[in-house]
């Protein structure tokens, strides 16, 4: 039961162009969505989050868009830089009683930014 899905295992873009990473979810009870970046031999690094009551959140080069009707979110990186090359994970948290900090992760998308 994969509640959070990242259907693209990999993405390759040219430096300076836009990177768009996609994520789909099935659980309408998710109240927060997050993106993490992971380099080899390191733990995931928090990038940006969005509340389910918003449709856009921006932080520097990173923007996350949420389309609740489609149960879809995307992370835009503009402009992409070679240092952005990493595995990107989409994650979500469930709202409701008994809420915890439990995050449900997608499988990850490997982004390669070519110089």
């Amino acid at each position, binding site marked *: 039961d994969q509640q*959070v899905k*990242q259907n693209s295992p990999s993405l390759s873009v040219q430096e300076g162009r836009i990177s768009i990473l996609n994520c789909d979810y099935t659980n309408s009870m998710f*109240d*927060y969505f*997050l993106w*993490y970046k992971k380099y080899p*031999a*390191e*733990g*995931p*690094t*928090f990038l940006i*989050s969005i509340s389910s009551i918003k449709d856009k959140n921006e932080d520097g080069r990173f923007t996350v868009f949420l389309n609740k009707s489609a149960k879809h979110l995307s992370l835009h990186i503009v402009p992409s830089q070679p240092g952005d090359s990493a595995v990107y*994970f989409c*994650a979500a*948290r469930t709202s409701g009683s008994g*809420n*915890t*900090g*439990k*995050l*449900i*992760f*997608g*499988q*990850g998308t490997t982004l390669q930014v070519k110089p």
Partner: protein
Amino acid sequence: DAGVTQSPTHLIKTRGQHVTLRCSPISGHKSVSWYQQVLGQGPQFIFQYYEKEERGRGNFPDRFSARQFPNYSSELNVNALLLGDSALYLCASGQGPFSYEQYFGPGTRLTVT
């Protein structure tokens, strides 16, 4: 400020053995969560502890247990190790019990042979 620290970095164990992994959260953070990441997959939630109490448990067998100490550090214990337990074990800290923004440590790579 130091981030989340985990020890050891790497560990090799034999099937049937027991292992203890350790985590220290970011200073001021009281919540610690444990995740298991198998190669090619996203992290999977194992436990969350807040103020020394278990707040959530993922779909893992009873061989997995954890605890949190008064200084908010935490241990993850796995008994009767199986080959399938080989994974990267990640610890994440958050400020409160419902913190959605969590900060991960570098992980402990466990190999079971």
